């Protein structure tokens, strides 16, 4: 009886750990977004990526459709290249689509805002490994302030 009780309590302990692990995996770290289902890869070249990080979300109209997989520097023209992993579910974006680096809120994290372009004849869809041509860089606050001060000075 005593041994039964001991083993029962150890079993409860193990189950509690599994519950904690599930809570951390599903609710806290959110393992499900990228690992779920097939994905394809797109590239985008920016002038400045600001505070963008690996695993930052890629959003269309606020809906997360993928994540930043890697950030590299192009050795030819020294501009950052961002590798995006997009869920295969959303694979019909035309080549005229654009990507820009946006910030959620004033102090929030940075993400890639993806804007689907227009579709006319002769425009193909973005496929695995394509580059997004139309990109706009992150707003860097220091540069903005610098420009502002510069324009103030030249007015005087």
């Amino acid at each position, binding site marked *: 009886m005593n041994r039964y009780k001991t*083993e029962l309590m150890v079993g409860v*302990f193990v189950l*509690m750990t599994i519950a904690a*692990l599930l809570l951390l995996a599903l*609710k*806290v*770290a*959110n393992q499900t977004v990228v690992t779920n289902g097939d994905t394809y890869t797109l590239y985008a070249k920016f002038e400045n990526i600001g505070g963008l990080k690996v695993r930052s979300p890629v959003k269309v109209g606020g809906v997360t459709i993928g994540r930043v997989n890697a950030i590299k520097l192009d050795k030819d023209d020294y501009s950052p290249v961002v590798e995006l992993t997009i869920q295969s579910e959303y694979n019909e974006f035309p080549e005229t689509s654009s990507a820009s680096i946006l910030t959620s809120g004033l*102090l929030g994290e940075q993400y890639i805002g993806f804007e689907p372009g227009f579709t006319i004849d002769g425009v193909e869809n973005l496929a695995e490994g394509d580059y997004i041509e139309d990109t706009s860089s992150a707003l860097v606050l220091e540069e903005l302030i610098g420009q502002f001060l510069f324009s103030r000075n030249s007015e005087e």
Partner: protein
Amino acid sequence: MNWIQQTGRHTLERVAASGRAGLMLFGALFAAPSLKNIPLTIRQLYVVGVQSLAIIIVSGLFIGMVMALQGYTILTDYGAEGSLGPMVALSLLRELGPVVTALLFAGRAGSALTAEIGLMKATEQLSSLEMMAVDPLRRVVAPRFWAGMIAMPMLALIFSAVGILGGHLVGVDWLGVDAGSYWSIMQATVDWDKDVINGVIKSLVFALVVTWIAIFKGYDSIPTSEGISQATTQTVVFSSLAVLGLDFVLTALMFGIE
């Protein structure tokens, strides 16, 4: 001249003690595992793990609640209450979960292990085992060591999970942070490998250090009532210091270099 001789004697004692500790760990780790030891390990898992659950859950809950309360008052000045979730989750998973669990474990289970093994030595139970051709390393030390190694990461995970729920209780239910932003910004910030797995690795290292110190201090204690009380104190002091020092080293290795 006397002090030079003293320095030499202390050094030799330290070296000999670390050698004995290493041999004991080796014996516990590589003692041929037998099926008979599994019930013993489960029994120790009960003593070391299940009986520590109450203190782990209560302190995890309160630490999560306090962090949410403190974080809220500061973050709300900047209108960044949404960052409460990642703040609570990251500090629990990366630091407080493994470290506080290890400190509590040293106080709750480590001291008990030292006292138990020390008393076994004082009452010559260990020698009797040897006389009966039972290896005390295998019969007494190994199950306790493995139980500690298994229990501490489990306790640390429970600690973090309960702390995050405690943060939710205070932040969302009492102070009115939006539940959606609490969870979603946490999900966007917390990385499985970088945060959760590194926290588990940390608590595995702490488990090794704390259980090792606790068992060795008991096994190597002077078999008198005074010696056992000294060994128990040393277990708590040494393992707390080792945990805090190692935590800095591990943090520097894991998160220091981007």
